[in-house]
């Protein structure tokens, strides 16, 4: 993997069906890749040995590398069931979830924390503490995978604090800006 940050051969990985193949009740699974009994059977094929010692053939379809918008996504077909599975380092996944929760649960009145939805380098800071901003206005520009991503204000407000500076490397879930 060229992007590096989605592959972590030593720690736990979190596997969750991508929205396209997720059903209610599908829970994320944290898996130690070193502990699973998966044998390769040539390109696109493998055999998984289950806890009750069955050998189940699986087909590996498409492998989409991680992008700023989503984790590495691997298509796996087992017994005719097709899954698009998002795979990422379990710790990173936890940060991503926290960031998502903050974005979803930020109230319209109280202070709103804006967290990083993608990791990268801060290429520009467009606002300073005390500035009045309107919804959709650019706050921060993050560069990731050679792309400039503009982070915009989710609602109207006054900038209470800017937590990062130009050139800083940020990780998923890092606090960037607080809006009052």
């Amino acid at each position, binding site marked *: 993997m060229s992007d590096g940050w989605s592959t972590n051969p030593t720690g736990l990985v979190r596997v969750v069906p991508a929205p396209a193949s997720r059903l209610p009740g*599908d829970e994320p699974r944290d898996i130690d*890749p070193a502990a*699973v009994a998966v044998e390769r059977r040539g390109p696109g094929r493998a055999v998984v040995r289950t806890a009750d010692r069955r050998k189940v053939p*699986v087909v590996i379809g*498409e492998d989409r590398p991680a992008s700023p*918008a989503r984790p590495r996504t691997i298509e796996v077909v087992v017994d005719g069931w097709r899954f698009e599975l998002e795979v990422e380092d379990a710790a990173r996944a936890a940060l991503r979830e926290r960031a998502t929760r903050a974005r979803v649960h930020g109230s319209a009145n109280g202070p709103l924390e804006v967290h990083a939805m993608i990791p990268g380098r801060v290429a520009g800071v467009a606002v300073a503490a005390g500035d009045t901003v309107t919804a959709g206005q650019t706050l921060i520009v993050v560069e990731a995978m050679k792309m400039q991503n503009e982070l915009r204000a989710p609602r109207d407000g006054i900038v209470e604090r800017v937590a990062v500076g130009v050139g800083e490397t940020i990780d998923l879930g890092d606090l960037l800006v607080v809006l009052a």
Partner: protein
Amino acid sequence: MTSAARSDPRPSLRKDGPPLFARVLVANRGEIAVRIIHACHELGIEAVAVYSDADAEASHVRAADYAVRLGPPPPSESYLRADAIVAAAVDSGAEAIHPGYGFLSERASFAASVEAAGLVFVGPAPETIAILGDKVAARNLAREAGVPVVPGTLQPVSIDRADGIDPLIVEAQKIGFPLLVKAAAGGGGRGMRRVASARELPAALAAGAAEALSAFGDGSVYLEREILRARHIEVQLMGDRDGTIVALGERDCSLQRRHQKLVEEAPAPGLSDKERGELHAMAIRLGRAARLRNASTAEFLFDEDRRFWFLEVNTRLQVEHGVTELAADVDLVREQLLVAAGRPLSARLVAASIAAARPVRHAIEVRLSAEDPARAFAPAPGRIGGWRMPVGPGVRVDTAVEAGERVPPDYDPLIAKLLVVDADRASAIVRLGRALDEVEITGIQTTLPFHRFVAAHAGFQAGELSTGWVAQEWDAAVADIRQAALAIAAEAAAAVDAGRVVAGASTAAPDPSRLAVAEPADAWQLAAREDALDRWSR
């Protein structure tokens, strides 16, 4: 070798009787169009395909000798355009039109306009299609032919009239509950409503009539008793222009979901020779009464008291005709073309009809569809990634798709029919399981998990079939089966991520210059767009 011999692969079939067609138009798409084109080519007949814009590069277009565009993807603007199809046949010099199944295959007006244009319709006469397409008329015809019909009303009722409902409620009490409200003008479960008590009847009549009106342009309905825990058994009929009609054995199509067949087999398991003989005789009586020619199917319910009840006659080739072909060792589409050209039923077909009284082979078909069996069989169109179908003795696959092809959302989700044949039912089921293990499809969800479940199910193996089987067995088990597969898939994905297993296909990282053209404003917008594309993607 003379040029005549080269251009005519089956000179023996051309020797006697009226000449065969030189060119036939196939008014269909998908696997059945390919199936018919193959049969044409094996008789030395050129095939003309028709296609919508969604199918410009489809298999049936590639397989045909000529192809005529009909219009945009919606069926009403393409495969249902009777005038355009007849014109295409005339313009391309075709002498006959084979309608396949679905689309225009059971429209008497289409068959009539084909004949009015001086062409041959490969199927029954327009008058036969008309009378059997009227389900109430067909019930009366069956009753007059001495064939038991499901208890119910024998006159269609239009409930627009205020005085229409009261007599129906009286009739319903006589028939008994539960009963079904059915559309007089059509089948396939449209316009059908189940009624458990007299109180529910008025609402069910209104809903059924409204649905029938929108589906068939005719809101007339009739009532039929619901036969509980019944099996669906149908008889393949074939007739020629001389009035000879034979039965080529029966099929059990009990595994259905909302009146859509999922698995079919021939012969029907567990029938005695006597029952089988009576069933075939009833079907032939129906065929004679309707002056049937070419291929048709008489459908019956078989109840717990081992009685047969007539349901309807389909005046076309069925989706599941292949199980009869394998069990009876005949080629029904070839016979259709020969009969349409004015030939009598072939000696081989007549011999097969006699042998069908005591079957010596067993065939099973499963319909692989682009549907998600975990989401109530919802359509799951998309682009097929990998595609591997089983091979080997006793295995047949009728399909029109390949790796990399898109399954369009505009048409039936059937993508392949997998058929197996062996000496008896038990060995055919073993062979089915083996063949299903070989199937590999990526890119889209299919009904494969359901079929694997059926093949491995003790109840199915024991022949315990009924039209309620899917709701009882599959709907109760599907969530657990999928979760077990998901647990294994997750382990495999973790192994791929760790570099221990190599994927079959890897997509390159998005090209930033290409994305710049579309100008995604930010990562969130990009993610939203990718999710939107995901619905049909890959």
